[in-house]
């Protein structure tokens, strides 16, 4: 038996096919989900992939958040289903308030695409169990609205509860507060991050590293052994 992992496509989603590939490379079954469809097709987990849903025209993630599929995702996420938001997906998760904080334009105001070193701060989430806390990984980063912000109280709470899941290393690429690259909810089932693990699962393409594969093997193991 393998796990069924849903990958949502909004209009303007770009990394849905890559994310499906990453899910397959890890050995799970990728199930395409459509934004207009409330039906989650009985998947065991959902990934909200990167891209520019609705062109990011109002604010990144602001319009997609109201889609029918998100109604179900929000409901299921609250009930404990693992959800991973990558880049635009992370932005959608903050817009829905499944994760706290918000994303601002990068402090240098440019789109930035580069290989980015991160420290995995938490291995207690559904998506990071295959890493060890403190492990350094390197995966692509590519966005223009990637500056994570939240008020001090929220930041302190995230730190105190061990919910900062990833931190930028070797230089903060966009001004994110406390070098935060990704966070998790309290239960550890909902995780969002700006960099792109799905672009780092095969040695031949992208940066040539496979440091991102752990996200997908983590969830697969969790679901299969559950």
């Amino acid at each position, binding site marked *: 038996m393998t796990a069924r992992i849903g990958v949502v496509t909004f*209009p*303007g989603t*770009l*990394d849905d*096919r*890559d994310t499906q*590939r*990453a899910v397959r490379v890890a050995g799970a079954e990728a199930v395409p989900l459509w934004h*207009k469809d409330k039906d989650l097709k009985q998947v065991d987990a959902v990934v909200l992939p990167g*891209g*520019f849903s*609705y*062109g*990011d*025209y109002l604010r990144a993630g602001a319009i997609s958040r109201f889609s029918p599929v998100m109604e179900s995702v929000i409901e299921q996420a609250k009930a404990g289903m693992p959800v991973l938001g990558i880049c635009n997906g992370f932005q959608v998760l903050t817009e829905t308030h499944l994760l706290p904080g918000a994303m601002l334009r990068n402090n*240098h105001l*440019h*789109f*930035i*695409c*580069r290989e980015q070193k991160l420290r995995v701060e938490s291995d207690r989430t559904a998506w990071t169990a295959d890493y060890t806390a403190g492990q350094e990984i390197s995966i*692509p980063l*590519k966005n*223009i609205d990637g500056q994570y912000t939240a008020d001090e109280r929220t930041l302190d709470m995230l730190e105190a509860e061990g919910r900062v899941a990833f931190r930028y290393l070797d230089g903060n690429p966009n001004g994110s507060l406390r070098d935060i690259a990704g966070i998790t909810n309290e239960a550890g089932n909902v995780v969002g991050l700006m960099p*792109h693990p*799905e*672009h780092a699962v*095969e040695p*031949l*393409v*992208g*940066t040539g590293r496979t440091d991102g594969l752990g996200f997908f093997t983590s969830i697969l193991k969790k679901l299969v052994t559950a």
Partner: protein
Amino acid sequence: MTLDTVKHAAETPDVKLPWAELGLKEDEYERVREILGRRPTGAELAMYSVMWSEHCSYKSSKVHLRQFGEKVPANDAMLVGIGENAGVVDVGQGYAVTFKVESHNHPSYVEPYQGAATGVGGIVRDIIAMGARPVAVVDPLRMGDAHHPDTKRVLPGVVAGIGGYGNCLGLPNIGGELVFDACYQGNPLVNAGAIGVMRHEDIHLAKASGPGNKVILYGARTGGDGIGGASILASETFDDTKPSKRPAVQVGDPFQEKLLIECTLEAFAEKLVVGIQDLGAAGLSCATSELASNGSGGMRVELDDVPLRDSTLTPEEILMSESQERMCAVVEPGKVGRFLEICEKWDVIATVVGEVTDGDRLEIFWHGEKIVDVDPRTVAHDGPVYERPYARPQWQDALQADDANKLARPADADELREQVLKLVAAPNQAAKSWVTDQYDRFVQGNTVLAQPEDSGMIRINEETGLGVAIATDGNGRYAKLDPYKGAQLALAESYRNVAASGAKPLAVSDCLNFGSPEDPDVMWQFAEAVRGLADGCLELGTPVTGGNVSLYNQTGEAAIHPTPVVAVLGVIDDVARRTPIAFKEEGQLLYLLGETREEFGGSAWSQVVHDHLGGLPPEVDLGREKLLAEILISASRDGMIDAAHDLSDGGLVQAVAESCLRGGLGARLIVPDGLDAFTFLFSESAGRAVVAVPRSEELRFTDMCGARGLPVTRIGVVDGDAIEVQGAFTLPLSEVREAHEGTIPGLFA
């Protein structure tokens, strides 16, 4: 205001039309009257004037471009050649690839962000129109002086626009160029290329056949974009009171285009489309007349059914509007329902605006009246053809006589070292990552190589590893010294880049950027460049599959350097054997392939150190290029080399510096017998590459080169953290990096 119907036009032969304001010459207007046997209606005049413009009709360049069709090399890869939206080549395993380069020069000067953005949008629609999924873009750019204040306005805007549009579309940017030269100051060149992939059976063409089939316009609503000319027509002749406030600049909507891609591909997959055309220059005028003239019958269009963004548009304006993100499909009546359903699924507005008829006329109606009744071929294909006069410029001899080989060379090793640093830090040779880091190169998850590699490479089949590579090049300085050779050097460099990364060069697309064709000097440059490129393609066996011409790139009397930008597409059977440029293993041996001569005409060294342009460009030996490519590909196939980098502007030292920085390792170089250090480092002789060979492969590799007759010289070893030229100087890599990587951010960040 009376509607200028066909009937009205026939009854009022003496009405004066603003043909001159619309850019037609008197004889061209007479020709229109002759074709129609009456005066044209305003709408007809609008159509003829845009379709017979230089941009759409190629009236100055056509007589020369014919050579690309005449000098076609025997190459069975070509599936669709010149004349369609983009050429298509067979890359094996049932896959076909389409690619093309286009210019958006002038709009990008006026409004850098939107001009460049809509340039990307336009070229991508050409690719979709062939039936392909776009998989990558490239952006060859030429800017004015790097230190000029206006360059600070134009370049950042252009880069943000290309990134803003391409990133949002989800197309990895895998290559391009950035060259600065004062000659481009008022005329920056923003060329954009795109590649698409499809199965052979999915190739689509721009033709409307099958009477009764429906013509569907889909995508963005039509607004008043880019119709300056038509507004004149509307206001001066037909309605003086109307304000002609029409935007000269188009704003792109990449999100809309992304939806357009997805819904078009879905319609293709369900085999719903008989013919398809994108709407670019000349908008509906172009789409309807081209679709109709390439098909079997005629076409009838109801202009009232075109969804508008601005309800005050006149029919002339609707026909000429260049609103972005629109496509036109021909669909059998029984499949229209499904086609519209797919558009709705993607929230794309789609409207049946006409149908294919069994006649041979293109008839367009407005408020029930016929306002266009033409033979579509006369609009789309029978435009004027000019034999513009051309002659070798009087200054050409003096320019060539001003020999760069006689320029003062570095007096000692210290000066040599200094000039090396100066060269790698010069804006044209400096690292371009400040630009390329603003482009997504990872999206779609198939990028094997991207900047700063020799070519961009994309995997197209995950199972077999089949991939394609693309490189674009064009050295305007060489072309200025000798446009025939300059064009061939552009071709050779692009070809060499593709081969250096391990792919087999297959076909060519080009974007020919020149000054005014009305200047015989420029026309000569153009004629020479086309002849050079056509001859070169014939010899290399790589056909020209399509391209674009951009003329009038000049301010007053001053034309840009002739700038033929050549894109070469290659195929690689398994991307696992691609050859990167990075020197990554200490102890690997460095070999120089090809011959080094004293060739400094048009070189980067002559520009950077002496601000000089004169003499002759490097010699071209396409036979040698072919051999070099074969060796590079064999070496990649048999695992004999771990890195390869082609030599071009800046010469050997530039290439070695780039490979060292990319891999994070230094190199110890020995000046070969018979060469002085200066020539060794800076000469720009063509047909060369540097490779890194694992020690275990040394014999096998040199034997292969020897057996095939390619000169091969051992020049050093990968080692340490400095670039050391024995007996001359040592440059710590950190110093090279600072010089090379600091320049562009220093100027533009």
